[in-house]
Structures are given as C-alpha cells and as structure tokens.
C-alpha cells in the first residue's frame, strides 16, 4: 500500500535509504542517524508522501548488536491513508559518549515537525536513555528525575528495585511542599517561560525562602 512512499524516498535519497522492508503490509525504511531529520522533513512536506500525522515514536533495544538501539518512528498520512515506519540505529551513549562521529548516539528531535513528538521523545529518553538534540524540554515523563537507569533496556532487570529518594533540602528545584507563601514552584525544574513580573528571579526567591521553610532533614527523621 505504501510501497509508493518507499519508491519516492529511494528516488529522492538514493543510497541514503539504507534498507527497506515490507512485511504483512507494513513498510519500513531505515536511514542513518545523520539523515533522520531530513528524511522526516521530506516525508512530511513532500506532496506525494504527505505524512501529516505523527503516530508514534519508540525504540527497541537489541543489546547484542553494536548499535543497540533501533529508533522507530511511525507516520501516517491523513489524506492519502498510507503509513510508513522510519527507523534508525543508534549506539549507547553510556558506552560511546556523545561526541564520537563513528558511533552516533543521538538524533535531532522531530518536535519542530510534529508537536506531538515532544512527550513521546521524552518517553524514549525516559525508557531507553536516548537523547534528542534540540528537544525543548527533555526531562523524564513517566518516571521521576531521581530514577536510576532506563527500564526498557534489556539489561535493566525487571525485578530491580529503586532506592528511596531522600528529601534533599539543598536542591533548589525540590522545595518543601508547604511553605508560608502559596506562590511556590512545585515543579522539579523551573519550566515556565521567564517573562515580565511573574518571573522575577525565581531561584533567588527560592533561596531566600529556604531558610524560613520547614525543612525536613532525612537524618533527623525517626527511622
């Protein structure tokens, strides 16, 4: 059904489309991480492909492969009714770092193309530890900031437990939940756009309030 899209991609990009598959009516194209954004942009903007709808982005971990992650982007064309799966293969950043050109560990975000990608790329980061360059807000989404590891990696054992997160009075972005004044930042991170009256240096205010806040010291707690 969407063989047409594959042909169009091959016409446009030639050898840069590394592999294509067709299995049970699902078409897949594999590209290099460096071509990720360009191919995605082409798929969205080209009149023939017209992949206007972002369906899903996820990853699959193959720990035995050298490039262990397969990043999977599912796209759909609302007007033409075809679907395509775009894939790329990434190395583990914990192993290769982020600056090795022979072992790419990151791809650019597709959030500028489809706003929907925002939360789903965050989820991929959360679950697999794959970073997206230029992502507007790449923090964990389903888990909490203090979570150790990325649970959907195959080497994350399913019965592994996480340590209790101690209350950290020194963390500026994790203030005691109840404070004398009600205009307090609850977030783990300062996320609001800083504009006009509202954003008068939050951090400084927080620090000023730290002294008067009821700070619970974990060491002082009865065990």
């Amino acid at each position, binding site marked *: 059904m969407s063989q047409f899209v594959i042909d169009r991609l091959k016409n446009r990009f030639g050898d840069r489309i590394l592999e294509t598959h067709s299995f049970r009516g699902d078409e897949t194209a594999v590209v290099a991480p460096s071509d990720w954004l360009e191919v995605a942009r082409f798929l969205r903007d080209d009149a023939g492909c017209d992949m206007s709808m972002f369906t899903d982005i996820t990853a699959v971990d193959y720990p035995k492969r050298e490039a262990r992650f397969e990043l999977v982007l599912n796209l759909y064309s*609302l007007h033409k009714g075809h*679907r395509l799966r775009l894939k790329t293969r990434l190395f583990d950043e914990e192993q290769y770092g982020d600056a090795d050109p022979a072992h790419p560990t990151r791809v650019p975000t597709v959030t500028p193309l489809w706003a929907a990608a925002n939360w789903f790329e965050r989820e991929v980061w959360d679950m697999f530890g794959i970073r997206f360059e230029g992502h507007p807000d790449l923090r964990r989404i389903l888990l909490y900031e203090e979570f150790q590891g990325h649970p959907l990696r195959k080497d994350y054992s*399913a019965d592994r437990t996480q340590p209790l997160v101690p209350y950290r009075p020194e963390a500026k972005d994790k203030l005691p939940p109840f404070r004398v004044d009600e205009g*307090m930042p609850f977030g783990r991170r300062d996320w609001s756009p800083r504009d006009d*009256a509202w954003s008068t240096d939050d951090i400084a205010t927080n620090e000023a309030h730290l002294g008067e806040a009821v700070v619970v010291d974990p060491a002082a707690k009865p065990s």
Partner: protein
Amino acid sequence: MEPHDYDIDEDDVTLPTEPMRINMGPSHPAMHGTIRMIVDVDGEAIRNVDVQIGFLHRGFEKMCERGTWNQVFPYTDRLNYVSPMICNIGFAMTVEKLAGITVPERCLWYRTLLSEVSRLSDHLTCNGAVAMELGAFTPFLWMMKARDHVYDFLEEETGARVTHSFARIGGMAKPPNAEMKQRLEEIIPAVEDILDEVEKILFKNRIFLDRLQGVGAITQAEALQYGWTGPTLRSTGVAYDVRRAHPYLKYGELDFDIPVGTDGDNYDRFMVRHEEMKQAIRIIRQCMQRMPDEGPIDADAPGIVLPPKQQVYTTIEGTIQHFKVIMEGAKIPAGEVYGYVEGGNGEFGFFVVSDGTGTPYRVRCRPPCVFTLQAFPRMIRGHMIADIVPTFGSVNMIGGECDR
C-alpha cells in the same frame, strides 16, 4: 450608614494581583485519574499549565516482555480500563497480523459486537463524568445505570465486569452465550431510553451549555499537529475514524455514521461521544442480525490456539499441544508489525516485535489519550481554573492507558 472603612485610603486596599503557581493533583477531586497539573494563574485566568503524567506507571511494556503472548491480555485490560475489550481485541489482532492468522467469520462478528458494547461503556463513563463534574449528578447516575447494563451483559459473556481478558490470539476465550442476543435485546432499549433522558435533562440546560460551549477549544490544524485521533479529533471536524479509514473486523460491511463537530470545544467533544453511542447501538443491532449463530470462533492454528478441551482430556496429542502452548507460549514468527484499532479515545495501536519465541520481544502501546493530553495547555490557556474540570473531563484521560 457609613461604611466601616471610610477612613481607609483606597490605594492601600487594592489587592495585589501577582501571578501565582498552584498545584492540582496528583490526588485531587477534579483530577480523576492520577495526574498532576501545575497551573500558573493570574487571578483566576490560567496562564500556563504543566501537565505531569506517570503516577500510574506500572511498566506495561516491560511486563509484556516476561510472559507468553497470551499472558499479555490481562495487562491490556488495564490499559483503557473503561473499554478493556477494545484493548484486548486490538492486541489480539496485532499479534494475528504478525502471525498471519485469519480468524473465522463468526469471531469477526463477535469481536465487532463486543468492541461496540465496550465503546458504549467508554463513552457513557466519559460523558457521565463530564456531566457530574458540572454538578449534574442525576444524568451521571443514569449513565452509570446504563453502564451497569453493559457491564452485566459483559459479565454474562466473559465472566468479569471490567477486566475481561477475553480475547486470545486466534480467537476468543469462549464462544458467545446461547442467549446473548436476547440479553442484548433487553439492555439496548434500556440504554437508549437513558440516552434520551440524558438529552432531555442536559441539552437545554443553560449551565451545561455555558460551561461547555467555547471552552477548551482547539483548531483543526493544532489538533492534527498534536496527533489527535478519535472523538476528540472528530470534534474539530476531521472525519478520521480507523473503522472507516482502514476497516478492520466487519466494520467495512456495516452501515454507520461518523459524527463530527465543528469547533473542537468541550461541547463538541461531548456531543460527538453522545452521537457515537447511538452509532454504536446501530452497529450492535446490525451485528445481532448478521452474526451467525453457529460456526467456529477460534482460528485453525495449531500451536497458537489452544486445542478444544475435549481433545486435551482424551488424546495425548491434544494434551501435548495444550501443554506446549501454555508452558512455552504460542510461537509467533519473528518480525514486527504495527496494528491499530479505533479505541475509546482514538487510534489505539500496538507495535509488537517478535523474535520467534513464545515471549514478546517488545510490545509498544500507542496511547491515544496522551496525544490529547499533551495539547491540554493549548486548550486551557486563557480560561478559568474552573474550566479545567470540564475540559479535563472531555479529554477523557484514562490513567491506565496514559501512564501504562
């Protein structure tokens, strides 16, 4: 009588109006489901919202990688727990697509019928909750009564009211009850009556209209940009419905309409869901007429579908087959597919990867309500705090599906 504060300088008593950050949830009466919203308010007007999800995260995708393919079904029940049957069937269809199994005619009809019954319970819950949150408690109770009819029916069919775990790869857990159609004949008029009553009590109510119309609106372009599907997308005027765009099961042969809205506001979402319930009833009626009373339910796929109990208890081949399917799991050929159905909230998809063993290598669920929820800040900016309640209600965020 002179005011008590006649000697106070007016300038000193003006209230300071500095913006404030307020925390709603994760355990808040209006946040049904566990979700946290950090709201920046200027007076009562909302400037920005940060929606934080994940409080109901159970590791669905990780859990799926541990058991056999059939052991995923109880987990799918807990994705969208107001329409679990659609999740069950969606996963079964995806794995069948991967394994290349076609299920018999009667099973297709049965699944179509159960999907629509499940859609009824989904939309009844959502619309009931929206009405209740606006203070209309009576229609909520009526709709819960209607949902109870639906649950009673599903209980008789599957043995469980909510978590059915009823689909299997290549068929269903058991064939339909002999008196299934008579039971439907009883409950469908009861549900229809309740829908009519709800229309009478709600649709001309000034409070109901004022709180919903023009609130939480989103444009078509934005909805598409955020990847919306399902009733929420249709409320903006895009007639995309998986049942019509990519007919699966028996939807291609059935006669039903796709209701669409125009403004994409809360009112349109409510009305689209309301009309979809009527269309669901229409589909159920057609299924009742056309579904054959005799015939197999399970596909002929040895090694994947369990053999009939009679065979298991009387023949050694049957016993061995049963043992292998249960203990080793159905061997699904290696490969990967994306399968999708029209869930209660939109395109409910599964991306599954198999390495040829009895255990899924990777199961990914595409949760439609996350897409809707992601656009929530866009919908609510500029409205009042009280508008969060109906807007959040009409988004129909389902914790199990959202956080997985």
